[in-house]
């Protein structure tokens, strides 16, 4: 989102400051980058449980006759096939198949919620607004929504007694409405880390009691607040997309390896023809995951070569705290996508030997199937 002036605060900013977090501007908000250390926070989520403020994410309320059909036509996944109480991950494409954003869609009894990336919120809103049919209510509720993610194998134990018992029985990508620490909330078994966990949506006025309630209930389980830096390393170990890095309007869901979100048989949707054509013609390039020998780390925008020839660019790269080695992703010519295929990443004047590996990089998470 283009920003001017001071970044927006979340209802948790004062807590981040009190904890001594390093704050950075992200998606127009002042957000915690880290509290204690990236590796410590990352491993806390893998081994125990971490708490993330992700209020910068955007939420839209969609209701009225034709609301479901509108979303179904706007995104690539099968929205009308969802059950009430279900959430799905989807891409949202342009007519040429380029990705406008990746997002979650929630189906409530009489309404829908779309959850989009903070950095693309303004663009997404304008994009969707221009397609809203008459009679469908479409409203940006980002400012009315606080969002926390509780992620890690101990997440369920932290919530026990503070949410309805039924919330603890939710399957992955299922949600319910109920009180969390006394706040009316949407309690969703979703996340961006590969671990079991929940995301809690509620009104900002309840922010103090939910934040403090979670920290208190989580203390015996080793809960710590976790910043955006570790959020990025956690998602990259899972091979999850970061919009603006791994996917954007010049890439398609098929190229990115999230073709499973594209339901070509669900009926018409924006981008269907282009994606169908791309599928029939075959992909010229694909997003691959790779590990790197040694300790130098592949970074966003570094060039990838094969046999001395430029074949692509790194979209995301980091040092993986769980695997204790450098990992990355990037688009390469489809013919090069072979298990164990070798690539070279150009890190300044140094050539890094990379080897293609399946995603996710990290396969031992507690996330429910």
């Amino acid at each position, binding site marked *: 989102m283009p920003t001017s002036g001071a970044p927006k605060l979340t209802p948790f900013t004062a807590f981040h400051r009190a904890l001594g977090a390093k704050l950075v501007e992200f998606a127009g908000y002042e957000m915690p980058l880290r509290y204690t*250390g*990236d*590796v410590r926070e990352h491993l806390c989520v893998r081994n125990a449980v971490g708490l993330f403020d992700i209020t910068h994410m955007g939420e839209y309320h969609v209701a009225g006759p034709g609301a479901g059909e509108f979303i179904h036509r706007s995104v690539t996944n099968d929205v009308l096939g969802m059950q009430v109480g279900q959430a799905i991950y989807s891409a949202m494409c342009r007519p040429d198949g380029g990705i406008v954003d990746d997002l979650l869609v929630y189906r409530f009894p009489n309404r829908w919620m779309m959850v989009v990336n903070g950095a693309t919120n303004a663009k997404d809103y304008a994009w969707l607004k221009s397609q809203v049919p008459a009679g469908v209510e479409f409203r940006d509720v980002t400012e009315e929504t606080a969002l926390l993610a509780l992620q890690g194998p101990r997440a369920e134990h932290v919530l026990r007694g503070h949410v309805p018992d039924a919330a603890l029985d939710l399957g992955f990508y299922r949600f319910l409405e109920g009180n969390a620490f006394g706040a009316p909330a949407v309690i969703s078994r979703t996340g961006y880390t590969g671990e079991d966990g929940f995301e809690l949506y509620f009104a900002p006025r309840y922010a103090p009691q939910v934040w403090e309630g979670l920290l208190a209930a989580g203390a015996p389980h080793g809960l710590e607040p976790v910043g955006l830096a570790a959020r990025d390393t956690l998602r990259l170990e899972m091979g999850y997309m970061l919009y603006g890095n791994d996917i954007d309007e010049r890439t398609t869901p098929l190229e990115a390896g999230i073709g499973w979100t594209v339901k070509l048989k669900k009926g018409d949707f924006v981008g269907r023809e282009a994606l169908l054509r791309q599928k029939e013609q075959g992909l010229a390039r694909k997003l691959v995951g790779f590990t790197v020998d040694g*300790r130098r*780390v592949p*970074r966003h925008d570094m060039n990838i070569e094969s046999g001395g020839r430029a074949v692509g660019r790194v979209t995301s790269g*980091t*040092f993986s705290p769980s695997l204790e080695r450098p990992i990355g992703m990037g688009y390469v010519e489809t013919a090069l996508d072979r298990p164990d295929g070798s690539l070279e990443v150009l*890190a300044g004047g140094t050539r890094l030997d990379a080897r293609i590996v399946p995603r996710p990089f990290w396969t031992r998470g507690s996330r429910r199937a």
Partner: protein
Amino acid sequence: MAYPDDIRYTAEHEWARLEKGLVTVGITSYATDQLGDVVFVELPPLGRALEAMKAFGVVEAVKTVSDLFAPVAGEVVEVNGALAGNPALVNQDPYGAGWMVRIRPADAQQYGRLMSSADYAKHVEAQHA
């Protein structure tokens, strides 16, 4: 933030300490705060001749990477081998156990022209103005 006043600084956030004719080099607490967890430090071999303010190594953190610049010209006479097994020393003790190289300076005057702690503090502040 206060910076030790018995050492000198570069605009690129290295520190330098002159002891017994040798200059020990590391990165400042400001640098480690910006970088986050350091996971690898690439250092030059012994005997390498360094040019002042030219890159001589690399610090890889989880989230980002940064070149290391030589505060003074000279020959590398020692490198901190402990960093290979424990790069986190750079975060834990940037002015002590997290040191990186020792240089035998080619020009004895160069050290004195580096920034004082007060000047460095102003430099850091200016970057956030």
